[in-house]
């Protein structure tokens, strides 16, 4: 009792002085509140993972970032935000990036232990608004310089459209940051892209000091969500998204080429197998494969569940994971397909290969493992 009374007096003396600060702001804002330390961090919603060295970095809800592997402890990193993190990109043993909701982009330079906020949704809103203003100026200039009425009319129409977009952006500004980044990829410590909802594409060439809005780099007027960036051979990059969105870049994301999509539903992932074939997959068990990267063949995987993530195993097999704990294991040479289902039956978002045939699954039930049967020789 005495101690409490004393503590009360001390805090009364200090109130109004520099030391008295509230524990958190009056209104809780997950975007700027550090991720809570959670004993059960491996059991929360985890959606993305990447390998680095012998370890993995895993991201998920409440700003959770974990590093480790299944034969070591998983360690929770210090993260300055509590929003749902959707993806992670490992540059090298030190540098890695993570992306998440409310426009959060994070970077670690010490192998994933400490993370700092490199972008937040408020900055993103300003960036996008400035980009729209710049487009507006360019359009107005173009209208003045239009060579004929027809062109001017077209440009006026585009300007109308743009001012409608700017109106929307102003409303967004009032609401606050709502857009999630859905994927991030860095080619090296300087050059990288972050993509997400409503066609957002950001690119940096100076390690995240400055970002450029590159939404127009692909043909996506409607603003479909961009779900995934998949690096391929020779600095190539595959971009996929909603409504069969499919594009390819060969210059580290500076420019994109639209590909003929084999599918008009949403694509959630893509991967290159050992032979360099491109696999894309998505809604309702739809899987397509392409040898040349241009013409796709539909593969009948016997599942109707969404396929959210995939991985080429070290033995050459491909595993696609999805809802209801489904795992489709495909032998690319023979096209033999086996369907497995994790006993938990909960949706899986991403997969990494553990030791041997054990796979690490990330999803609604957190981090789970599953021992796949060995490949038939």
């Amino acid at each position: 009792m005495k101690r409490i009374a004393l503590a009360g007096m001390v805090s009364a003396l200090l109130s109004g002085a520099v030391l008295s600060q509230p524990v958190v702001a009056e209104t809780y804002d997950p975007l700027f509140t550090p991720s809570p330390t959670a004993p059960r961090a491996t059991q929360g919603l985890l959606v993305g993972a990447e390998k680095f060295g012998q370890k993995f970095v895993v991201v998920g809800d409440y700003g959770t970032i974990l590093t480790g592997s299944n034969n070591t402890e998983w360690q929770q990193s210090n993260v300055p935000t509590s929003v749902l993190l959707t993806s992670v990109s490992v540059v090298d043993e030190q540098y890695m990036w993570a992306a998440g909701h409310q426009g959060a982009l994070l970077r670690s330079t010490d192998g994933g232990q400490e993370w700092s906020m490199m972008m937040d949704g408020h900055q993103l809103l300003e960036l996008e608004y400035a980009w729209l203003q710049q487009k507006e100026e360019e359009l107005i200039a173009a209208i003045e310089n239009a060579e004929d009425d027809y062109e001017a009319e077209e440009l006026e129409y585009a300007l109308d459209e743009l001012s409608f977009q700017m109106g929307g952006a102003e409303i967004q500004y009032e609401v606050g940051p709502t857009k999630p980044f859905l994927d991030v990829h860095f080619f090296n410590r300087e050059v990288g892209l972050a993509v997400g909802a409503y066609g957002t594409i950001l690119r940096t060439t100076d390690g995240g000091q400055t970002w450029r809005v590159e939404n127009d780099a692909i043909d996506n007027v409607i603003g479909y969500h961009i779900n995934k960036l998949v690096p391929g051979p020779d600095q190539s990059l595959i971009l996929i998204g909603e409504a069969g969105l499919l594009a390819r870049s060969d210059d580290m994301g500076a420019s994109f080429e639209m590909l003929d999509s084999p599918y008009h539903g949403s694509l959630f992932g893509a991967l290159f197998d050992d032979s360099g074939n491109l696999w894309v997959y998505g809604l309702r068990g739809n899987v397509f494969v392409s040898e040349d990267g241009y013409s796709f063949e539909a593969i009948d995987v016997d599942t109707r569940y969404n396929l959210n993530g995939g991985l080429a195993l070290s033995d050459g097999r491909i595993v696609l994971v999805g809802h209801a704990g489904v795992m489709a294991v495909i032998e690319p040479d023979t096209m033999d397909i086996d369907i497995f289902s994790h006993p938990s039956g909960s949706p899986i978002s991403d997969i990494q290969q553990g030791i041997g045939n054990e796979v690490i699954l990330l999803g609604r039930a957190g981090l789970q493992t599953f021992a796949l049967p060995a490949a038939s020789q």
Partner: protein
Amino acid sequence: MQDLNKANAMNAEAHGKASFAENMLFRYRMFWVLVFAALTAFLLYHAAQVRPDASLQKMIPANHEFVQNYFKYGDDLSAMGNAIRVSVETTEGDIFDPEYQDLLRQVTDEISFLNGVNRSGMRSIWTPNVRWSEVTEDGFVGGPVIPQNYDGTEESLAQLRQNILRSGTVGDLVANNFRSALIYVPLNEIDPETGEALDYHEFSQRLESEIRSQFESENINIQIVGFAKVVGDLIDGALLVGVFFIIAMVITFGMLFWYSRCVRSSAVVLLCSVIAVIWQLGIIKLIGSGINPYSMLVPFLVFAIGVSHGVQIINAVVANHADGASKLDASRLAFRGLYIAGLTALVSDAVGFTTLMVIDIAVIKELAIAASIGVAVIVLTNLGLLPILTSYLGVSKGGVAYMKKVQGEEHPMFQLFDRFTQRKWAIGAVSIAVIMSVWGIYQAQNLQIGDLDSGAPELRADSRYNLDNAFQVANYSASTDIFVVMAETAPGECIAYENLALIDRFQWHMENVPGVQAVRSIVYVSKLGMAGTNEGNLKWSSVNRDNFIINASISQAPSGLINNDCSMAPIIIYLNDHKADTLNRVADEVRNFSADYPTDSVNFLLAAGNSGIEAATNKVIDDAQFRMLVWVYGVVIVLCFITFRSIRTVLCIVLPLMFTTIMSQALMSMLGIGVKVATLPVIALGVGIGVDYGIYIYSKMREALNKGESLAESYLFALSKTGKAVGFTGLTLAIGVATWIWSPIKFQADMGLLLTFMFIWNMLGALILIPALACLFRVGPKSEPKSIA
């Protein structure tokens, strides 16, 4: 011995003149008989209307902060809470069988016809509100789980299986192993048409007769789980207590006869004690109180205490007859000799019971009131009516003859107990008691607060209800230990982004608390809905800042997750168990979170749900535990001191009681019985009634000591005067409550077991430890204080 009795009788005469009370009583004997008869008829009429009442509100500490908060939002929470879950299990094959599906449809239909069922809220795979949905390239598609053209064929069953898988009802309405399906049945607490409150007992019986017995067969089992069923089973079990009462009466009559060998006086004692019970029940009905599964103990205690005091009267009456007194004089003298002592003992019982009032839980207060009324009634029936009746009826010749025969004998046990007045034996007995106390205190360290068993702790672990509950817990994803925190916001603000974001963090905080299985709330639904509206993509499973998007995400939310004016959102925390440690940890973490994230906009209120209420009950019990012991021992010590005016005497009487208290706590700990609403009063009752033995024995012993007899002689005298009565009282009390051990209600069985243990242990403690302690404290004859036997 005869001399002593004579001396006693003369003593009583020497006490003089008939008191005013005695004259009033015996001069107008017939008048009083008629008054008692009239009152008994009147009160019997009212007692017959007493119905067992298992109202939840009375079993919980209504003034505790948690419960007050729960009451504040009780109506909002009831939409979520009061439901039963009926599962239909097939022991052959799985649920994809046309006959099984036909049966499930029938059960669903039958249940919907029961009064009290909220039909529109019912969910089963056969209700049209249970649908599957799927995102396709063209948007959402979906339909009812039962295919439109269902006809029981292979194809339609295959279609049904597929619909079930994509409806997300596995683990909810369909067992994880596909061998049973579940019907979720929300209840209307108040019938919306008639405005009548739901009669749980009747509802439970109709579930048994119209659902369980109608549809169960060789390969179909039906499990029913839910609060309404617990209450129904509780009342069913409580009604069985009536049978126990009859058994206790029969046994007691047998013992009375064995003791007195006189049918007439045995019947009179029994009659007066039953009249005491009738009065007690009639009076509690008249004062508007009811009888609950806890206070049902009171008639048993009243009956047993009535019998034990009645025995004293009869004993004296027969002795007076043996001495040649007339019917009337025998009764008069008995009354004269005993009414002061009886009154004192009864007053101390009543005062002991009233210490239970420190526990702020309605059922315990009712128990305390009922017990005090009962004891007061015994004063009238067994000290007043009983001697009047014996003055008319007299006693049988056989009884008088038996009394004459045994008066001369010395019971062989007396010699045994008398040895404890010798130093060697005294040291031995006290040493064993000390060793056992140390062991008992060590054991009692593990004593838990609250209920420890899983399922419905009110019922036995192997009761049908708890087996059903275990079945549903094993086959469906559900815990029955539910702790609800109410997130209170300004009206209309319950789903504002800032509030949902904080609730989201709170939810994750609680999910990380050991003992928590899962947390569900409107936030959980909103996050699921966000993923759902984004083609099931988990990367969208986050609360959005945009209120329009939030509204869309919760459009499919089940009812009850926000209240009508959107000022409260319950957060449902599913726990592994309801151990006190778990509940305290959860409550503490809720407070810690509120302290870490201070805000004006969300107030995380504790607590509702069965586990939340239990946390409050545990707190009240834990707080009351020590206070109650202090009170009851305080009262006993004061009473003993007033009576005997000696610290040593008080120690001699109270230490054996404390020994019993310690041993009963050790017993509770060993048997896994927690300190709870049912068992805490038992300790007070045990001490309050247990002190009687000590008072009887010590007062007689003192009588002889004052005459200069040695301790050994004095104790032998006390034994000869009261030894049998003490033994008889202990056994009657024990038998009265021992029948409870077979009650289907777990806490009644616990009460019966503990009380039986305490009554017998107190009796032995008094008979062995009082002389031993008296020896060690060097209690001796008044004239030669230094001489010790």
